Each structure stands twice: as C-alpha cells, then as structure tokens.
C-alpha cells in the first residue's frame, strides 16, 4: 500500500466523517494539512475526555466485586460503539458520495476501502476506549500480574471492537445488497440510523432501569446482564474452564461474522457501493408505473417537499431532538418511580399546562428541527423557483405548512405519551395540546424566517445547516436556556396556582402575557418576513 496515497485518502475521509468539526475549523481558516492535523487532534481530545471521565469513575469502583456494574459498562460502551459505528459508516461510505469519483484515479481499491475503514474505526475508538480501562481495572483488581492484565485487556478489547465493527459492517453493507436499499438508499439509511439510536437509548434506559441491585454482599452492585457475564469470567480467571465460555463465545461469534462478511457481503461490495453512490442518476425503474401527471401547483409542491425530507442526517437530528430527548425525559421520570400523577389535579391548573405546552415547543423546535432547514433543503432549486412565475409567498407558505404539520404532530404524539404515562385529566391534556400547538406555531415562524435569513443553498453536508448562526454553542445554549427558563417559569406558575388562592388571577395574568407576546411575535413575523413576498 502506498503511504502517500493512503495519507491523502485518509485526509479526505477525515473530513467526510466529521463534517461538523471540519466546517467549524474551515470557518477559522484551517485548510489542507493544518485542517487534517486539527481533525486528528480532535480524536485524541475526545479519547482523553472519555478516558478521563470514565477512567476516574471506574477507578473508584472495584469491579472484581461488581459483576453487575462490569456488564453494565460493557453493554453501555458496546451500544455506544454500534451507534457511532453505523453513523460513521454512513458518513464515510455513503454521505460523501466520493466512491465513484475515485474510479478514474490511480488509487487501488483496497487503499480506498482500507482508509475508509480506518477512519470509521478511529471514529468509534474514543467512545469505546473506556472499555479497555474497564478490562484493565477488572483484571488488576482480580490480582492478575499488571503486564498480563494489560495484555489481556488489549486482547479482549480488540476482540470486542472487531465484533462491533463486524456487526455494523454486516448490517450496513449487507443492506446495500438489497433491492430496497438500492432504490431507497436515504430512507433505509435513515431508518437504520434511527433504529440504532433508539436501540442504544432504549438499551441504556433499560439497563439504568434495572434497579434490582444485587446488594446481598458488601458491595453495592446492580443485577448483571447475563449475556455479558462470560466476559467478566475472562478477567476473573483467564485460564480456566469458567472463562472458556467467554473466550469461545467471542471467538465463535467473530469467526461466524467474519465468515458471513467474507462470503456473503464482500464479493462485489466495491461495485455495489460505487453503484449506490451514483444511483441518484440511474435509479429510474422502467417497470414502475408512470406517475400521474400533476398540473395543479399545490400537490406538486407537496410531493416535492416530501422528497426533501429523505435526508438521513436531518431525520436523525429530528428524531433525536424532537422525539428521543422528550421520550428520555418521560421514561426517566416514569422509571424512577417518581412519576407525577396528574390524575387528581383540578381544572384551575389548565394555565400551567398551557404554558407547559409552550415551553415544550420551545424545547423541541430549534435550529436542527425540520422547519429550521426546510428552505435550505431546496439547495439551488430555491433560487430557480424564484425565477418562476409562481407566488413565492404561496411557495413558502406551503413549505411552512408542511414543516409545521410535521413538527406539531411529533410534539402532540410525545405529549400524548406523557399524558398516558402521567395519567393526565382530559381538560389539562387539552390545554397542554393547545399550548404545544400554539408554541410550535410561534417557534416555527421564528425558525422558518431564520432559515430564510441564513439560508445556504450550496451545502454539501446537512450539518452545515445545523451550524448556522451561533453553531453548536448556540444550539446547546438555546436548548438548555429553554429548559431552564421554561422550567423556572412553569415551576413558579405551578407554585402560585398550587399553594395560593390566586390561581384565577395568575391564570389571567399568564394568559394575557402569552397573548400579548404572541400577537407581538406574530405581527413581527408578518412584517419582517411574510410581507416581503407580497
């Protein structure tokens, strides 16, 4: 393998694997070798941060007496590894769409694939390296001679990493062989990334939820995950009959997956991936029935806008900020046994629930929401549409309606789950839903206008859109700001309603404030945005 070529390919792949970080450094003027160095350093920083955080926590625990905690951490990092691995494979092998561009260049196929695999591996390592520490601590606490404990930890870590990578490679590359993937690449990839994320979060929640601590002994431990106990046995007694199950299990699974990959997936993989990279231009299916010709503008616009939504990273972000985050909140409250029971609350609480709905909308609609990127998703089409003799107001209005509908449906669904979980009375639920609809509408007005103001139509990676304005810092500040400020407002309002006799007055004042702010906000949005297109 030629080192110069491999280095050049890895530089490209580093940029593809980390579009957000690349974009951030580019804004600071970093390019070429300086950018590559910065991106490489990012891995080192991530690794150090993860090791420091988890290393310190793990150092305090004696895993030789805590098989439950040991298996919990193994499960946690394996899930994180799988989730990170699948999104990295997507970014490096698919999102960049560069495989076909390499064909005329004198790179060898194995160099291209090796560099990509290496970058995926590098992306996953920081999230899984604490496993290495866990294995070393456990072996050491069991009294294994330190150099041997290090070697043992490295061997088991590499086996598990290989297993994680093989599982992900089998899933993703196996999927590329299916007709479904070849015709609906983005939709399948979105689904896969969403499922992985849901499994990772659900897995972590489930593990967290299994609070039946095995506290019979002196140590404070949780119930072990049976499936992962053989790995614990490897460190308890590396060369024994008991650990044989762990060794055999790991090696057998590795061999099985490696064989599957070699014989079922690898043959013709490069041709398939290259084809998938270029299917956008060749995926016309001659057997598909011709779509009925539309001549009315609105249905055509709707169909077009729906096509824009098939962007895996966008859907993943929508899933994470609008669905997963609220779901985690709800499930965490419910699982910890401290679930609120709203069943007995009287009607006077309707104002609190209405404001709660507004706050919920402010938490879930942010710069990564669909509505906040819908105009930029048009890319160059947006400028082209401006040249057409159609009303821009109508065009944008239709787009807004779609984005708002999508967002409000997600928010209502989340609140219905919360209502069932916390046994909410119907009146309060109705108030909450009205609040969330109104809040979502206002937030959508704001973020839709923001998208127009900061629109980028020549983006190459969706994360460029998420980073507009203040970037990640602004996103985190907005999210936490809305949680904290919203939380304080709702809590203060609830205290007044719950503990004083001023409920009616508080409700009137609160609703008046909401009404005044809403009218001001709506008028401002009309003046600063919608009237521009009259």
């Amino acid at each position, binding site marked *: 393998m030629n080192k110069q070529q491999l280095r*050049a390919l890895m530089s490209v792949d580093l940029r593809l694997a980390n579009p957000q970080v690349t974009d951030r450094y580019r804004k600071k003027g970093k390019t*070429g070798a300086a950018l590559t160095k910065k991106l490489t350093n990012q891995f080192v920083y991530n690794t150090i941060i993860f090791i420091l955080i988890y290393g310190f926590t793990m150092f305090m625990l004696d895993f030789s007496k805590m098989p439950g905690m040991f298996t919990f951490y193994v499960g946690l990092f394996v899930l994180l590894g799988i989730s990170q691995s699948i999104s990295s494979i997507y970014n490096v092998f698919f999102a960049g769409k560069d495989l*076909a561009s390499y064909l005329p*260049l*004198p790179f060898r196929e194995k160099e291209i694939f090796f560099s990509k695999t290496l970058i995926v591996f590098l992306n996953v390592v920081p999230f899984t390296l604490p496993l290495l520490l866990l294995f070393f601590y456990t072996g050491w606490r069991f009294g294994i001679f330190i150099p041997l404990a290090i070697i043992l930890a490295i061997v088991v870590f590499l086996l598990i990493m290989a297993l994680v990578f093989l599982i992900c490679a089998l899933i993703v590359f196996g999927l590329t062989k299916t007709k479904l993937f070849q015709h609906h690449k983005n939709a399948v990839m979105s689904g896969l990334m969403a499922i992985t994320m849901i499994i990772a979060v659900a897995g972590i929640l489930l593990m967290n939820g299994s609070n039946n601590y095995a506290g019979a002994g002196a140590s404070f431990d949780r119930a072990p995950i049976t499936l992962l106990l053989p790995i614990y046995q490897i460190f308890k007694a590396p060369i024994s009959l008991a650990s044989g199950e762990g060794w055999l299990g790991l090696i057998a699974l590795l061999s099985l997956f490696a064989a599957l990959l070699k014989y079922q997936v690898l043959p013709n993989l490069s041709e398939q991936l290259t084809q998938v990279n270029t299917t956008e231009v060749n995926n016309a299916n001659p057997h598909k029935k011709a779509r009925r010709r539309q001549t009315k503008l609105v249905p055509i616009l709707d169909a077009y806008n729906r096509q824009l939504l098939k962007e895996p990273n966008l859907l993943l972000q929508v899933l994470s900020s609008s669905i997963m985050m609220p779901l985690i909140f709800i499930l965490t409250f419910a699982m910890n046994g401290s679930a609120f029971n709203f069943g007995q609350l009287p009607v006077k609480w309707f104002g609190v629930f209405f404001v709660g709905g507004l706050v919920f909308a402010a938490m879930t609609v942010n710069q990564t929401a669909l509505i906040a990127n819908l105009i930029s998703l048009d890319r160059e089409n947006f400028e082209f549409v401006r040249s057409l003799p159609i009303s821009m107001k109508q065009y944008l209005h239709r787009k807004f309606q779609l984005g708002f509908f999508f967002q409000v449906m997600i928010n209502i669904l989340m609140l219905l789950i919360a209502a069932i979980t916390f046994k909410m009375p119907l009146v309060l639920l109705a108030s909450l839903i009205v609040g969330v609809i109104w809040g979502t509408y206002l937030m959508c007005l704001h973020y839709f206008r923001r998208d127009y103001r900061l629109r980028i139509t020549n983006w190459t990676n969706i994360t460029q859109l998420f980073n507009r304005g203040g970037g990640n810092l602004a996103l985190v500040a907005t999210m936490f700001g809305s949680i904290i400020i919203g939380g304080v407002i709702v809590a203060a309002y609830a205290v007044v309603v719950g503990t004083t006799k001023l409920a009616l007055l508080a409700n009137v004042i609160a609703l008046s404030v909401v009404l005044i702010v809403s009218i001001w906000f709506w008028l401002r949005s009309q003046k600063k945005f919608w009237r521009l297109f009259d």
Partner: protein
Amino acid sequence: MIEIKDLCKNYGDKKALQNLTLTIKSGEIFGFLGHNGAGKSTTLKSLVSIIEPTSGTITVDGLDLKANRQKIKEKIAYVPDTPDIFLQLTAGEYWDLLAAAYQLSEDDVAKRRHDLIELFDMGAHVDETMASFSHGMRQKSILIGALLSDPDVWILDEPLQGLDPQAAHDLKELMKAHAAKGKTVIFSTHVLDTAQQLCDELAILKKGQLIYNGSVADLRAQHDNQSLEDIYLGMAGRQDDGHLVDNIEGDEHE
C-alpha cells in the same frame, strides 16, 4: 496508442454502444461528436474505468485495460462532464489529493501547479471549498488537477461547458500544446467549431454506433466542402426540414 475493439455497453435492453472499433494515435487530438445519448460519454467513461463495458476490449500502448487497470490509470487524467466532485474539499486539498493519487512529489508538482493556478486565475480561491464555486470555477479546478501529472492521455468530457471565453481559449491552447508534446488528447463536444479547430481526427456517433471516423478535412472533402454543421446534421441529425420548429413557434420565424 489507444485501440478500441468491438466495444459494447448495454444498460438493460438499451444499447448505449454497439461494436465500437477505432484507433487513437499518440500525439493527436481526437474528438467525439454526437447528439445527447449517442454514446460519447459512455466511451470516455469506459476508457477511464468508470464504466465496465459489456464486451469488447480497450488497449492502451499495447496493454489491455482490464488486466492493467492501475498501470493505465497512472497514464490517464480525466475531466468529467459535470465538475461536481469532491465538493467538500478546498481546491488546494483537491489538488493535493490528485498529486497523491499520481504519486507526484512536492518538487515535481509545485511549479506546474503554480503555473496552472496562474493560467486559470484561481490564486485567490485555493483555500475555498469546491462547493462554494460556480460551475466554471469547479471546471477550472478539475482541469488544474488533471494537468498536474502531465498525463500521457488526457480525456475531457464536454470540457468547454461553463468556462469563460478566456479560460475556454486557454484550454484549447493547452490541449494543442499537450498533443504537440506527443501526448494524446481525447474529448467530446457538441460545439462543431471547437471540433473543427482542434481535432486531428474525429468520431461521429449516432445511437451508440460509429458513423464516421477520420479527419475533418477528409469528411469535408467527402461532402463537397460543406460546413461541418451541415455535414454533421446531415449524418447525425433529425431529417425533419424544420417542421417541428414550425409546429412550436409558428411560421413567423421563417
């Protein structure tokens, strides 16, 4: 020398190329002419290993392309018909990638790269991402990248599209100079004037079949020195006497 023999490419039932056989000599500028879908790009993409032909052979300097892909790729540089590749990279990073692909050392490439950047007036854009470029600037970036290795065979698919008149003129001069060094330049075009100006030999394709292969002078001599446009439309064009245009625009345009 490049020899193409019985080259066929099918996309399902559609025959994009049918038994294409021709020879392209070293040191000549060879042009492919034809309507959209005639098979020009398919031929060029087969030459640069983007497309695997259904049947037939391609040999470059006596080496079979299929058996010596890597070695032959090192001799060839390609400029695609749409310059929308590696958009995530800056122009400078793209040229670094190309330099590494052709295993060029920093010393080999520095002066040539500098001269090409000057020629195409790209000095101010080296650190900008290709995504932010106009079509013409992307095209210029790719042209610079292709010429970094001073390739033995330079293949260009519709290279003049999107270029400003100065850049288009410079590119044509570069193509002539490249061929004058004994290297091969192969390109496709819709612009008949360009073909007439540049080509030592040309091939006219129609629906995947070769309908003419030879020099422009021979072609004109065979057709009583008519203009290349008249000859080309007579051979490859639609025989409708302008009725379709009349149907659309009415008779006023006459």
